[in-house]
């Protein structure tokens, strides 16, 4: 009886590990697809248009950027951006 129970448990464990692995593989495939199509194509486009997203190389007198961050309307704090 104990042996059967152990076998069932091992089978269950193996089954869930298998699905976990499948899940990881699907995630990797999907993310890779998003990366190549979404990020890749946008990068290609932005490079053609010479759009820089970070680290502009322009020589500047100062690297300080004006911010002027102060209290805003209450509703703006409900936003995550």
């Amino acid at each position, binding site marked *: 009886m104990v042996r059967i129970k152990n076998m069932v448990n091992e089978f269950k464990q193996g089954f869930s590990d298998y699905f976990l692995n499948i899940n990881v593989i699907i*995630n*990797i495939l999907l*993310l*890779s697809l*998003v*990366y190549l199509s979404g*990020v*890749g194509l*946008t*990068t290609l486009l*932005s490079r053609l248009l010479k759009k*820089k*997203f*970070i*680290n502009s190389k322009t020589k500047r*007198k*100062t*690297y*300080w*950027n*004006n*911010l*002027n*961050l*102060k*209290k805003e309307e*209450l509703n703006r*704090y*409900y*936003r*995550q*951006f």
Partner: protein
Amino acid sequence: MYILGISCYYHDASAALIRDGKIVAAAQEERFSRIKHDMSFPINAVNFCLKSLNITANDLDYIGFYEKPLIKFERILFQHLSFFPLTYKTFLKTMPSWINQKLRIITNIKKNLEYKGDILFIQHHLSHAASCFFVSPFEKAAIVTIDGVGEWTTTSYGKGINNQINLLQEIKFPSSLGLLYSAITAFLGFKVNNSEYKIMGLSSYGNKNKKSNPYYNYLKKAIKIKKDGSFKLDLKYFKFHYSDKMFSKKLCDLLKTKPRNPNRPLSRHHKDIAAALQMIYEDVFFKILNHVYEKTLCSNLSLAGGCALNSVANGKIIRKSPFKKIWIQPAAGDGGASLGVAYFIYNSILNHKRNYVQDTCFFGPEFSTGQVHEFLDKNKIHYSKFKNKNELLKKTAELIYDNNIVAWFQGKMEWGPRALGSRSILANPLNPEAKDILNNKVKHRESFRPFAPVVCKEDAAEYFECDEPLPNPADFMLMVYPIKKKIQKILPSVTHVDGTGRLQSVSRKSNPLFYDLLREFEKLSGIPILINTSFNIRGEPIVCTPYDAYRCMMGTGIDYLIIENFLVKREDNLQDKW
């Protein structure tokens, strides 16, 4: 009015609860989960905060989150777009947590806390700024925040007046002093986001002469610094902007050496690299402070962000900048931002007058004598009980004076990364062997790191070449000062190689029991100073509960545990040794 601040999902998750503008409870998640720098949703910390007032989440008026997740996500996406295809591995590694956690913060908060109320999002550096200004003693102050990175900002400054803050200028990712410090920390074989303070300690062993330390000039090529303190990193030496590695092969070429293998001993050149880094950090830091003073014309300075834990630089602020008074949030890193967001909501957004000055950091869990008694009995631990406070103080002072290592567990746990007399390990600073004993028996930490001295506030100037009056951040172990020459010989275990000490000053008002212990020790030794180091096992967070404390004692060579009114001797409980 109850406001709860939350910070999580980067590192050092925490929660802070304020009631009508006063701090009620605050703690980092790591203390409960026992995972150092735990960044997961701080459910335990939140529950502790709520329980301390016997309220539920729906009694809260607001919950505040310490950053704007979508702006941060924009930065992450821009990194991927800028450095495609180098970011592929990081994309696979980090996107699931963005999809499942970081972009679902509202759902996560509501689900985890069964909360139906309002959630507000405050910019990361504004949260840091609020954490060091609204609870400072200043009506008006210049504010400086420096860290690794928030959403885009890595450094900002501005001005605080009464209950409003205006951050005037910023430096943006990828130029970051915090990330520069972390990159060299990694180069020297230490853990990023954990061991930066060790590099600061190591820097004292290196060559501090800018002309003769070659690494100073090498490393300066990696950062362009303007007169106004603004700076830009040369990205070819780094990798953090596209991978989970911090530095590139070019940095090795620049420094003409290989990165240190963590298992290999530290050599002369490693110490010189650490010194070069600290000198560059200070070059930039003091240029920033001078610029900020010029722009704000304010002689009070409030400081926060992870870099505000650089106590070596902090100790020089009064001498090297125009600022006359300083206040630094003891939880200066991201853990403290939860407190900042709560105060920003209360003071700035809701326009309440400021009514609180943070002169202590004891906001964590505490355990009554009854609870400790029950724990000891339940676990069949051998102990004795002190008749009164005087007996407790006298016995503890004697044990320390007799060169025992004594763990001290009293009252509410500290807020911030330092043990300041609630969850501390204490030792006799007059004992020349104390450092080695502590290292061999308990801490097992790098031999180059000194232990911190704790001193009665009124007496600090007698032993240290400190600013007078002593700035308040010294209460939180945030300032390093030279120890007076004649004292250095008497206190070798707390004197760093360069003759400095990271002192903690204690006033009777802020922690009467700890202060009285120092005075009791003075009666025996003639000095009101003890060695104070954090009560933890290497690699673990500081202890929180009586169980953690007892486990830590039995897992190390701590001789005695003074836990509330009880004395536990390790030797009497060897059955629990492991």
